[in-house]
């Protein structure tokens, strides 16, 4: 594990994580020490604004792409890590602020501290390049989420969500741990770099396939990818809505971060395949694993979403489908080479970032509705266009972005993903099996966009066309939620689209740093 390389100054590279830990403790302590506790609303804003401050700090702590700090091989603080860190802290901050209005949580400092600790652990998940670190970070993030999912103790659904999430999570992470332990047995090391050196493909063909499968169980659970997506609808429905938003965005993104880091750094095994006239090195195992998973995740998520009558369940299945789109990008990333590979990784990062902003907006609106109407079925959204038009417009913007309609940012995200998949198809060369498979993925992706029109616009239809009792009276929208919806909704639809060139360049820098391309 190379203790001799350890330099205490390197701790500066995880300063944002340290700050988050400190901040979480402060939030917890502030609530405990003040007489009678701080009011829920104040505390949410307090925690959220503090996280925004950490976010600003983290933003300026952008590491040098060529010499990432390793911290004794535990993490790799490259631009890729930095980008995910920004995503997670932003997601945590928005979740804190959105929770400020969420009355049924009746939460004290521990609730917000858990969000902050969970975001911190997700940052470490993206950074980890060591099995131990990976597992610790993943478990820290997950444990906090299990607790938060079951936070509404009086609510049966919420308790069920917490238990279900915990049981599923515990089982899948145990399977993953088994895979990781095999890897340690094969290589005698916990560090990704040493593993990549020790476990060479030709000798370890069977174990590597086996290990890939086992670890993928844990990753797929975090990503809510087929066949480990079953928990998603129940957990989303039962969790406090802001937490459902957090699970569906930040936690999912963290799943993709560990997946890509693990396969890129620990099992970069390749096989030689013929491409056109020359040969190319293709990571055989995970391309062949990820492509069917991507297709099935996409299909199952989309068609299950069609049948839902509850908006949070619909959003849960839609987030499964969204994971399918990202997996298309990951599969393309896995089989592409050179600059195109970096572009595919950047497409995944870009998609995850924009998806997070958009989905948090959607869940925040769902949270407001469930607070005001006492439920979050489609029928509870009826007449929202009359009661709170700007909230309804924000929701529409978010749904259109999830759908991928221009000018929303979701369109550009999907465009990048599909472009990478088509690049992968072209690289495989016309007429080959890979060519048709990647094209098939794009075709299915486009068809599922058309399917998604029906379930996303179902909400829009309920909001604007259906009438509800007393919908002529305007609804009082809480300020914190409207702030979140405004920031994320407007950002998702217009602002990022206009400056998406800038964000794309950031994502590309991150991807190049991730692949060591400088």
């Amino acid at each position, binding site marked *: 594990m190379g203790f001799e390389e350890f330099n205490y100054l390197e701790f500066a590279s995880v300063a944002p994580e340290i700050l988050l830990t400190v901040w979480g403790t402060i939030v917890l302590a502030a609530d405990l020490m003040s007489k009678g506790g701080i009011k829920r609303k104040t505390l949410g804003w307090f925690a959220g604004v503090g996280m925004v401050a950490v976010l600003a700090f983290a933003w300026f702590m952008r590491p040098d792409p060529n010499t990432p700090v390793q911290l004794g091989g535990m993490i790799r603080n490259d631009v890729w890590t930095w980008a995910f860190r920004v995503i997670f802290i932003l997601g945590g901050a928005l979740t804190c602020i959105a929770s400020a209005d969420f009355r049924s949580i009746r939460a004290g400092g521990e609730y917000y501290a858990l969000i902050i600790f969970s975001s911190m652990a997700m940052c470490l998940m993206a950074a980890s390049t060591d099995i131990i670190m990976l597992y610790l970070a993943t478990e820290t993030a997950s444990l906090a989420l299990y607790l938060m999912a079951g936070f509404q103790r009086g609510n049966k659904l919420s308790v069920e969500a917490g238990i279900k999430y915990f049981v599923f999570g515990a089982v899948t992470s145990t399977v993953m741990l088994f895979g990781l332990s095999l890897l340690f047995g094969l290589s005698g090391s916990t560090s990704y770099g040493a593993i990549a050196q020790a476990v060479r493909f030709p000798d370890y063909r069977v174990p590597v396939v086996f290990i890939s499968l086992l670890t993928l169980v844990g990753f797929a659970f975090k990503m809510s990818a087929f066949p480990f997506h079953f928990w998603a609808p129940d957990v989303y429905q039962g969790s406090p809505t802001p937490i459902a938003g957090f699970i569906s965005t930040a936690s999912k993104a963290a799943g993709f971060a560990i997946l890509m880091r693990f396969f890129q750094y620990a099992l970069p095994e390749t096989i030689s395949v013929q491409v056109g006239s020359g040969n190319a090195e293709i990571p055989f195992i995970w391309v062949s694993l990820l492509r069917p998973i991507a297709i099935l995740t996409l299909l199952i998520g989309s068609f299950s979403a069609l049948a839902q009558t509850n908006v949070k369940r619909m959003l849960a299945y839609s987030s499964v489908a969204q994971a399918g789109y990202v997996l298309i990008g990951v599969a393309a990333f896995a089989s592409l080479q050179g600059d195109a590979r970096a572009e595919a990784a950047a497409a995944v990062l870009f998609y995850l970032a924009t998806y997070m902003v958009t989905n948090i907006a959607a869940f925040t609106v769902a949270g407001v509705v469930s607070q005001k109407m006492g439920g979050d079925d489609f029928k509870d959204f009826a007449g929202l266009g009359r009661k709170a038009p700007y909230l309804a417009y924000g929701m529409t913007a978010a749904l259109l972005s999830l759908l991928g*309609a221009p000018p929303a940012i979701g369109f550009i995200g999907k465009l*990048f993903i599909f472009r990478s998949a088509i690049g992968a198809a072209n690289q495989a060369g016309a007429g080959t099996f890979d060519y048709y498979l990647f094209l098939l993925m794009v075709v299915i992706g486009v068809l599922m966009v058309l399917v998604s029109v029906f379930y996303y*616009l179902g909400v829009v*239809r309920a909001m604007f*066309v259906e009438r509800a009792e007393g919908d002529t009276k305007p609804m009082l929208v809480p300020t914190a939620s409207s702030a979140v919806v405004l920031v994320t909704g407007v950002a998702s639809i217009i602002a990022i689209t206009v400056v998406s*060139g800038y964000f794309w360049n950031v994502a*590309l820098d991150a991807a190049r740093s991730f692949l060591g391309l400088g």
Partner: protein
Amino acid sequence: MTFPILTLIMLAPAIGAVVILLLPKERSDAIKSVAAGSMAMSLLMSLFVMFSYDRVLGGFQFIEKLAWIPSLGISYHMGVDGFSAPQVLLNAIVGFCAVIISWYQNDRPREYFAFLLALISGVFGSFMALDMFLMLIFYELVLFPVYVLVAGWGSKNREYAAMKLTIYLFLGSLVAIIGLLAAYFRAGNTFDFFALRDNIAALPDTLAFQQFWFPFIFVGFGVLASIWPLHNWSPDGYAAAPTAVSMLHGGVLKATGAYCGLRFGIQLMPEGARLWMPILVIFCFAGLLYAAAIAFRQTDLKYIIGFSSVSHLGLVLLGLTTLNELGFNGAGIELFAGGVMTGLMFSLVGMIYERAHLREIDQLSGLSKVMPVAAVGWVIGSLTLMGMPGLPGFIAELQILMGMWQKSATLSPIGNSLNWHYAVIAVFAVIAIIINAAWTLRVAGKIYFSEPKDPQLLALPRLDGLEKFAIGLMCAVLILVGVMPNTVMSVVQVGVQAIVKGLGLG
């Protein structure tokens, strides 16, 4: 970089909308003045563009190009050619009149005018964009204000109509987007119009590619141009929409459907157009005849006008199906003249409805005594619709029909025969035009020039100066273009010559 006049034309209403949103709710006079002022600026600049367009030089002019998202091949690329310059002017005229007509809109005027101006701004952008992505952004940005305006300020059944309209147009645009993305991915990952056109032509399997993807784009945009049988949203939408929105939607927004079908459908994939147009012509003709027949039987004034706009677009699409200079010329003029005509008719119906709150033609009578200016406007609009010589409808319809005759003598891509069905359709299209003449005259006779049966109608408030001004402006444009067709013709011809030459179809 030259003076960005196109951007300013597009931005003037958008800036107006932002200013309006910043004004306090109560100051409705200031709100309306800002709206009219920003539209007047757009109108003046559009006139300048139209008349300073170099007819000798031709091609795309006033071009602005900036890199936007280079990694996706997206740029901010604006420009007009002879075909789109008149449409920009059309949007400015109808938009200006729509703002004037809405002067007495006192239900949440701030939001109303802000959304109206946003709509106009989006339409400007769709006519000017030379980057497919930019065009799509404007195109989708238009749908949102239309929904809000119809659902928020419309008449009966407004939510249903607004949703129906939005879903139709949205799904149509998704189909078009799929076609456009296929072009994007096959032809060098660029959204730039010129690069796409050249790259598509240079593909090794260009013929098959164009023939497969052309219908996606053309029919996708055709939904907005109310191509039969996907026109169903249109009459419902227009019956429910507030007057100004009907004017803009029927007169101009539909024109963007036809225009995008031409620019991003026919021009990008001419071979596809050659294969599919002889089939699509049947649908366009069916739409024309069907709408005319329904309008003849309808008794609800707003529905009648709604169907007349389907009819008007039917003629435009017929012109586009010919793929020759005459037909395209006719389509260009019809887009412009028919747009003004539709705007005029919708505004007149709106004026009657807002005063009498009646839409059934049987209940209306003798209105020429109450609002003579409206009666004159109706007659001029009707004569344009039926193609009376001396008005621009004649020039447009004549050229479209001549274009169809010419097309009927060309060889069909399917089988080894002539496109003889174009000639048959041309003959029957005349029947549709005659039906149009019949119902407009019937309506004119019933509601304007009959003996007043209902004394209450005589007591209706008279038209005021602003309304007369708007009617006068639109009538003046129609008469001017009718008497001196060269004002528009000369520009359209320059554009069409270049387009037809670029198609490279023998």
